[in-house]
């Protein structure tokens, strides 16, 4: 939900929009500077940066595989599914990364935040034994609810542009 929270705040202008290209340039410059200061630690710095980049998503995959697989004795199929999904996402990413890069970053994060929140509520409920009406279709209802509430939150928190810049 932190993705959704940030996307709402950015859409409303409470916090400035995130510029991925600038962030990448700044991070690259900082790493170059660190490497220049201490050549021997270059690999360590690169390793830590890469580790940070994949840690969160990697842990999420591990948690989902354990949550879905261990309860029903299906750890191996769940792991194979996770690896297949990883390869599929990498392949699709390679194909569509250019058109995807044209989608405004905050819109993308807004959509991902809504999906993650909807899936999160659904799966947490499943884990607690909630018998959702209309089963998996409930996710669509949750997504619509999160979208409506988030849209309302953006409208309520919206700032004039001048205020954001100051």
């Amino acid at each position, binding site marked *: 939900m*932190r993705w959704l929270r940030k996307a709402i705040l950015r859409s409303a202008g409470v916090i400035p929009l995130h510029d991925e290209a600038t962030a990448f340039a700044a991070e690259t410059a900082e790493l170059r500077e660190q490497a220049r200061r201490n050549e021997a630690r270059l690999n360590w710095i690169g390793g830590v940066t890469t580790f940070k980049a994949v*840690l969160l998503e990697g842990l999420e995959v591990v948690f989902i595989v354990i949550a879905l697989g261990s309860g029903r004795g299906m750890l191996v199929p769940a792991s194979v599914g996770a690896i297949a999904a990883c390869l599929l996402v990498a392949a699709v990413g390679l194909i569509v990364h250019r058109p995807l890069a044209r989608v405004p970053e905050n819109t993308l994060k807004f959509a991902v935040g809504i999906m993650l929140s909807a899936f999160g509520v659904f799966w947490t409920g499943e884990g607690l034994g909630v018998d959702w009406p209309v089963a998996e279709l409930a996710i669509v209802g949750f997504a619509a609810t999160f979208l409506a509430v988030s849209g309302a939150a953006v409208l309520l928190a919206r700032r004039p542009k001048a205020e954001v810049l100051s």
Partner: protein
Amino acid sequence: MTALINVLRELAGLFVDDGALALAIIAIVVLAGMVAMLMPGIPLAAGAILLFGCLAALLSSVARADRR
């Protein structure tokens, strides 16, 4: 020691952005779990707590950030 603290702070920052929001979500899940355990005959009660609790936590977090 400072470097270690910085690394730990960075790691924590990957998972927690707004501490109050994270705590609220944990409280909602715990509450929903307790309701599911104590009232197994009304499983949707826990579901409603989850959904509306998360929405309330989200709105409250946005409102807090807006006021700052």
